[in-house]
């Protein structure tokens, strides 16, 4: 009876709306397969490129009957999305268009139709809720991103607004500012410090959102003698890449403990997120600071040479699978990020697998005197 009811519900909708995506993953395997089958059929039918890729690989969506079959879905290289807008629904159905520009002038465009957007929001809500970051108390926001009032990139505004919906905003402060679009960006350390002091004094929960590298610089600028204590219920939720912080040669764990010590917040309330515009499904560190694979995703790791999945624990390219987006064929994306599935069970208690991101894969340097991509970029810059 239950199964029959389930069959009548769109499996993708159901998957994305699961209330505990990390804890409930083990019970949603079948649902995921049904959702994946449906998504594969949809893209195969509505996207000529995907139809060809499937045909060339001899892949049929119906062959997805068990977890291991997911590896057979022909992957779409994330790099291709920088050059080609591949849609599985008419463009006019786009409810949200996210655009990011690449280093060599390419643009990645991600379109979501209304239904897919709703699923994305469901996924985010489920995850934040499960991790304990949905709060009804008025909250002060300290945002380490470019002030959207003067940024051309609408993505930031959207992301911030989207994240601020999980706790009502009492006040907010963007730390990277400029007076107008023609002025240079400045990291307003003095203003940020003043705002931080004010927020700490006010006693409402504070949420610090944004890019870790800016936050790192801010930590360094804090007066050494001054102690800060973020009010109870505060959180630091970072995202948007570690590259800048990596250059500063600091581990994530060390960074977290520095934040915890200097700002007076438990490390369990400091979380990093992982997201990729093309993939769109959200990941958030658990209380033990691991990225779990939620129910609405599957994460495979592939050997770049053979393109086959590697054994658990081995390093390869991350292959992110999620069926939610009807508008774009991002069902199975082969990323350019190196990573691995952790062989150990996470200490947070959830049994879903966790994965690590080990940085961008690919050559920029050669071993010898042949000119490499790094040399070329340097020359042009």
């Amino acid at each position: 009876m239950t199964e029959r009811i389930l069959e009548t519900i769109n499996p993708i909708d159901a998957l994305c709306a699961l209330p505990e995506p990390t804890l409930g993953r083990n019970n949603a395997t079948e649902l995921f397969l049904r959702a994946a089958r449906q998504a594969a059929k949809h893209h195969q039918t509505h996207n000529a490129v995907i139809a060809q890729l499937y045909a060339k690989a001899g892949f049929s969506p119906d062959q997805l009957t068990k977890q291991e079959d997911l590896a057979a879905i022909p992957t779409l290289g994330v790099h291709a999305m920088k050059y080609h807008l591949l849609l599985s629904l008419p463009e006019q159905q786009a409810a949200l268009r996210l655009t990011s520009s690449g280093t060599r002038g390419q643009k990645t465009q991600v379109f979501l139709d209304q239904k897919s957007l709703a699923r994305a929001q469901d996924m985010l809500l489920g995850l934040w809720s499960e991790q304990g970051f949905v709060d009804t108390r008025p909250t002060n926001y300290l945002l380490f991103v470019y002030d959207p009032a003067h940024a051309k990139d609408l993505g930031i505004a959207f992301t911030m607004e989207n994240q601020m919906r999980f706790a009502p905003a009492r006040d907010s402060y963007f730390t990277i500012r400029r007076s107008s679009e023609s002025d240079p960006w400045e990291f307003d350390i003095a203003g940020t410090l003043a705002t931080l002091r004010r927020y700490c004094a006010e006693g409402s929960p504070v949420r610090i959102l944004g890019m870790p590298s800016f936050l790192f610089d801010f930590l360094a600028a804090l007066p050494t003698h001054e102690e800060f204590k973020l009010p109870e219920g505060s959180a630091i939720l970072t995202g948007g890449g570690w590259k800048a912080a990596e250059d500063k040669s600091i581990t994530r764990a060390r960074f977290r403990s520095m934040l915890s010590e200097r700002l007076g917040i438990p490390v369990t309330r400091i979380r990093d997120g992982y997201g990729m515009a093309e993939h769109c499904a959200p990941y958030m560190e658990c209380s033990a600071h691991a990225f779990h694979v939620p129910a609405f995703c599957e994460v495979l790791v592939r050997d770049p040479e053979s393109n086959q999945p590697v054994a658990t624990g081995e390093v390869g390219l991350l292959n992110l699978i999620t069926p939610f987006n009807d508008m774009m064929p991002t069902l199975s994306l082969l990323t350019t990020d190196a990573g691995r599935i952790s062989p150990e069970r996470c200490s947070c208690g959830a049994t879903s697998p966790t994965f690590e991101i080990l940085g961008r894969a690919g050559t920029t340097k050669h071993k010898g005197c042949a000119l490499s991509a790094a040399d070329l970029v340097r020359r042009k810059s």
Partner: protein
Amino acid sequence: MSWDAFVFGRKVTFANALTETDVRALVAEARHVHADVSLRPTEAQTWNLLDALSKAWSDPLFEPRRKALEILPAVTGFSPEMVRLGLDVLARDLLSPAALQKKVSTELQGIPGPLGSGFRYDHSNGTALQWRPLGVVLHVLAGNVFLGSIGSLLEGLLTGNVNILKMSSDETVFLPLFLESLAALDERGIFSRRIAALSFPSSATEVVAAFKNESDGIVVWGGEHAVRGWRDGLPASCRFVVFGPKYSLAVVTAAGLTEQGASETARRIASELAIWDQNACTAPQVCYVEGRSNAKELVKELGMALAAQQTALPAGAIDFQTASEIRKIRGLQEVRQALGSGELTASAIGLQYTAYLDDALDPEASPLHRTLRIVPFERKEDVCQAIRPIGPQLQTLGLLAGAQEELGIRETLADLGGLRLLPLGKMAGGEADDPHDGAYDLPQLLKLVCHRFEDKWRFVHPEDRMDTAARNTDITQRLEMLERAAHQTPLYATRLEKFGKLTLQSLAAFPPLTRQDLEENTPPFGTGLLAPDREAPQDARFALQGGYVTRSGGSTGEPKYSLYDGDDWNAMMEHGVRVFLGTGLRKGDRLANCFLAGDLYGSFVSFDHINVRLGVTTFAFGAAVTGEGILKAWRGFHLNAIMGVPAIIVPALRQAHALDPSFRMEKVVFAGQPMSKADATWLRELLGAKRVSSVIGANDGGQIGYQCEHLSGSVHHAVDEYNLLEFTDDAGKPVPDGEPGQILVTTLRKTRLPLIRYAIGDKGRVLGHGCPCGRTGRIFEYLGRADDVINVGLMNLPVSAVRAAVDSSNETGVTEMQIVARASDKGEVLLLRIESSMAGNGQKGTHELAAGIKQNVLLGLPIIAKRLAEGALAAFEIEVGPPGSIPRNGRTGKIRGVIDER
């Protein structure tokens, strides 16, 4: 963690990472080695070591080679086939002394380098040049191609530097293996003492800074990051030599594609990608193809060609980052193919090869590992526009173009920055002396030193003023090179095997080479004295590279040939300039060359080649010279010098003078025969000759002596640095200085047909060292042909003794002489035929002249009167005629000194 390093011949274990103190100690030791003259390898020692290394590494059973084959595929990622090919290239090409000799010769432009001695001297401006090593050179090696380290090391050794090699973290296996093999073959350890190889990260800033401060030169192989890291903060005193980062590409035009066909073109491209898995900086990272359909076709054709390479030279292992990059490319290209805008050829298994169509004209870095963008173009200008920004980094351009357009395209590509423009399919290959990065390699590791001397020394080659010790060192080193060359010849290989090492001291014990030995072992009669041709060593025929074949009369009546290949010939000409300077000839002289040419006769040609190098203006009279001709040239062109055989030039000069008493000749150079005292006096007194100089040469060895302004008669400067002379008894035992002996010649700059102790058939004696002209070498007296002795009337009369007796008076005007032995009814007759400038000119009656000469001879050689009295000699007669009256040899123009008519 402890680690091993090769430090100047020792294996040293470091307990910790290299420190600044270690660097200072290393460089101090390197400086000590550099300063120690006794530790400097000679040229022959260098080539001998390379020979030994080359031979060893060619041997499949050689342990280091076997080990390298076993280990390197896993360490470097290259397939076993590629590693084997690399080791073959090492043994056959990289270590080849012949190729490296050519490299040295081309790149150092004939200026003596650290492996030799002396100068390249230009008397026209008095400039003497020589190369000197930088000193202590650090080589920062790259890990892309494991042979790269050996190339850099060899360049360091050939330039006489002491070399510290910083191994790449990607390749720490092959170099130590190679150095081990080098140390084992380096008998005296003098090469190993000039090499250290160690590992340290470029991030070790203190160590890097210490090397920058302490080294005389730093050679960096690598990308922009490595180059900047080593260049930044380098003191001005340190020479910086950069190899990389370089970008190579291929260009295929529609006409080129039509001429070669798509399949052949694809085969060539595939071979460029297969060698070193595209990792060398010479490999194309993009291929521009004219016409989209052509480009598309080529991508398809590449499938077959690249698959074929998998059998011939399979792709090696791939690292994670490269694989990720190629996977990324394939992902994009798969989508493009599905969209109908792309074309992709990729190995079905793994990432062995990937070729794809890409419309983006801008050059992009390939991840390598046989990954190539095929970029179509419609207009050549568009390609130029696209690659212009990376012009300074362009290196090898592989070109396939139509015959009509090719040169134009090459010009354009060279203007854009291309440094090596090669046919597609040959980008990876090349000669050892090809400049790779826009300049020759060796000069970058050397200092060019310029000398200029006091004006009085302007026309004396600086090497002619070397002291005895320096000359002996020079000769010793040349003997080593001769020994190397001689080992290549069948005859000497056998003799040397029994004999041992050839030195200045041991030379006297080496068996002399007789004329018969020479004839029997010289082509076409034999090849025993011929070393294999450098460029075609397997050629059974005696292939020569350039040079000359001349002939003279053989002892058996058959003509005897003398062979000089190009290198030997050039060495003779180069040294000849030095000899001619000594005779007084100068650049700008207007010279009548009256030597004989044609019929394989060598004198005109060889003198002419030296004249050209010296810079005189030649009037090529040859032996057909006449007094009128000389006079016209003198009047019309201010002819001031003449060269030839006395028997030819003196009559012509006399004729010219008779026609015009104001006729003068400033310089006279003669060879082939002695000149009579009377002629020499006449030249000086009546013709105003300031210089009358003799040059002595041997048909088979070249010049052996000459006269400076201070020498005359039969006294000559020896040229021991070119032909080492010995004066010995008939058994080849050296006679003391001052004693007459046969002359043995050992050729020091003749490598194709080397001669050791060749008895040229002449006699002489050493008179001492030094000369007021400033030259410090030996002086010897030339005593004529060893076989110029006539046996008549129970006398053994040396021709030179008869000549001396004839010349004992200046008043007879004798110019030429011929001795004839005859039989008569009464017994043997000695006849002297004399040419005299006084004969028939009314100054003195011919009869009276003959009587005077006869009296001189009888006084000088009392044995003649004694034999006449005894009756053993029936008669002694004199015939006197004017110059030109004795018959000349039709070919050589010479007068036969002795005629036996019995």
